[in-house]
């Protein structure tokens, strides 16, 4: 701890995305109080106003992060004691979680009204959580890693229990809270051991001073990895996933399934991604085991699920396994991991958005039976759901294929053959349960239940944005689509450039 100079040299551009999103959250909180009192405004209009404020904050944050990425600058808030670093890596991850939050805001609007849980705090909590994710992905100090993780988790514990009338929602919140706190305790214990053995709190310092022959340091690293593995719902730390995914309001499930995973994996990349050479072998062995178990357990258990939200929860476990395969491949795998997270975002959020849009009479229609004959009743929705599920399975032509292909090929190149073979085999298994939903939608007769009429504009916008992204990134992962902005959107190359900033 150096004695601070009187004039601190602070660079606020490093914390701009976090600060903007946090201020957006506060603006939503304040604005809601005033808008809710204006009798002339309908519930829907209040929601639109709050969502617009949230959108403004998120777009500004995305703009700053995107600019930082394209310019390739790296800024640290306080050079004397670096806590957050906005480099190309964190800028990329910030954009990913920001897009996830943006889509979630618009996806949840009509749904919250439908479920009669339309409180303005929802948007504020969502934004605070997003700010926490942006802290986590930019954290270069163990202190900010912990704070970011807590700021992202706490609002989600609440959001999971947002539907207080529903027992399963309460159960989800309680379960996620207890398990999440447990994971945080493990992570804290790990950080204490790391600090104790290295005398550093900065990640770079820990890396430089890491005593690889000290079992305490290795235990500390292992505990940090376990703490983060809880958040990404990798097996065997996944037990909370199905219940929480099923019980939480679907818009919240969609939000947390993609953004929490992206942020926690980004933090794991910061830990594992640099040259932790002394620990790399041990860490690699742990991650290898977790990856294998997640893929096998997630895919096989997903087969027997009759609730689509639960099925997607087990598929989330499986996808955590695929992402971890990218970790075991070392440096070349990190770009593949980042691209996978972006790909997973659009496909998974899209699938949850379909369930959100199908919610009827204040309830989720998430049993597989309620998808029967959907193609006849609502052909557009059925087609979109099929597209998103096929992308999750990894059919060529969708972004899921490119992402999986990247992961598998780096695994093969890194001579992780057994892991790659398991990944391919479990992908084949996954086609069964992903295709089960389209089979119900296209080949069964519709049941008694009449569908909810129409599709609301915000939901339609979110669905089409996800669908366009899935297809566009599937066919043009490196840009080249003949439309001015998209021409240069070389997302795949960007992911690899972002990963290069780790080293």
């Amino acid at each position: 701890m150096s004695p601070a100079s009187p004039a601190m040299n602070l660079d606020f551009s490093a914390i701009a995305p976090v600060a903007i999103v946090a201020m957006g959250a506060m603006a939503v909180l304040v604005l809601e109080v005033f808008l809710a009192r204006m009798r002339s405004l309908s519930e829907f209009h209040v929601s639109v106003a709050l969502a617009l404020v949230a959108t403004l904050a998120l777009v500004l944050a995305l703009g700053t992060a995107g600019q930082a990425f394209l310019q390739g600058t790296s800024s640290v808030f306080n050079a004397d004691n670096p806590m957050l670093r906005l480099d190309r890596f964190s800028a990329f991850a910030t954009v990913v979680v920001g897009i996830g939050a943006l889509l979630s805001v618009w996806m949840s609007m009509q749904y919250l009204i439908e479920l009669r849980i339309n409180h303005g705090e929802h948007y504020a909590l969502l934004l605070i959580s997003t700010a926490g994710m942006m802290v986590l992905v930019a954290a270069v100090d163990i202190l900010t890693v912990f704070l970011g993780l807590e700021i992202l988790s706490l609002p989600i514990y609440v959001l999971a229990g947002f539907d207080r009338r529903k027992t399963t929602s309460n159960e989800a919140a309680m379960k996620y809270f207890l398990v999440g706190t447990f994971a945080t305790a493990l992570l804290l214990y790990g950080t204490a051991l790391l600090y104790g053995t290295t005398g550093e709190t900065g990640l770079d310092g820990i890396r430089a001073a890491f005593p690889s022959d000290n079992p305490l340091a290795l235990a500390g690293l292992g505990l940090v990895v376990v703490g983060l593995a809880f958040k990404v719902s990798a097996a065997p730390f996944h037990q909370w996933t199905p219940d929480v995914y099923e019980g939480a309001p679907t818009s919240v499930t969609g939000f947390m399934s993609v953004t929490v995973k992206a942020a926690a994996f980004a933090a794991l990349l910061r830990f594992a991604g640099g040259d932790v050479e002394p620990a790399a072998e041990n860490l690699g062995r742990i991650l290898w085991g977790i990856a294998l178990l997640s893929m096998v357990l997630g895919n096989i258990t997903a087969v027997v699920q009759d609730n689509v939200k639960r099925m997607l929860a087990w598929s989330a476990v499986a996808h955590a396994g695929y992402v971890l395969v990218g970790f075991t491949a070392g440096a070349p795998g990190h770009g593949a991991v980042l691209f996978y997270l972006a790909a997973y975002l659009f496909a998974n959020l899209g699938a949850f958005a379909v369930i959100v849009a199908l919610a009827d009479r204040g309830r989720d229609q998430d049993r597989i039976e309620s998808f029967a004959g959907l193609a006849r009743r609502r052909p557009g929705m059925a087609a979109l759901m099929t597209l998103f599920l096929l992308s999750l399975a990894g059919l060529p032509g969708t972004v899921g294929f490119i992402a999986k292909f990247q992961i598998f090929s780096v695994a093969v190149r890194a001579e992780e053959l057994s892991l790659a073979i398991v990944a391919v085999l479990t992908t084949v298994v996954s086609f069964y349960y992903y295709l089960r939903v389209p089979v119900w939608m296209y080949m069964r007769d519709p049941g008694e239940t009449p569908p909810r009429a129409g599709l609301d504009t915000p939901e339609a916008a979110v669905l089409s944005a996800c669908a366009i992204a899935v297809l566009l990134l599937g066919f043009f992962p490196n840009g080249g689509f003949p439309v001015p902005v998209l021409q240069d959107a070389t997302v795949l190359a960007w992911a690899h450039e972002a990963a290069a900033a780790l080293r």
Partner: protein
Amino acid sequence: MSAELFFFYVFAALAAGSALAMVSNLRNTVAAALSLVVTMVSLAGIYVLLRAHLVAAVQIMVYAGAVLVLFVFVVMLLNLREDVFPPARLRPFKLAGAALGAVGLAGFLAALAGHVPDMAAVPESFGGYREVGRALFTDYVLAFELVSLLLLAAIVGAVVLAKRRLEP
């Protein structure tokens, strides 16, 4: 053995012993909570030995004071009696857990032997409110502000979950 080391062992034994007493006391929750107070105060003693005087004071005020009072309140409000708890089950799991914990502890102690560094020399003013305050608002100002964001989230969350009236 220096006086410092002697007191360290006293406080450490107290902290570990009362923590164990808290976990193993299944019948009387108030007594368990009071065991926790002993742990907290002993930890404060260890902080004093480490020259972290402000942290020691905060430990007593916040943990032994506020947090524990909250615990005792909740325990008393719930008024849990012995017959409320379900009979002990999953005995094999508990035994396996205890065994695993013992193995872990043994490994931990074995690893610790020979790795304990000497206590670093610290400046005279270390651990006082002045030094802590200075560090908090210069080097760690960002972390400080982030904690306030975390507290905001906690407050909003508590209001949402507890205060909002349920619409029928």
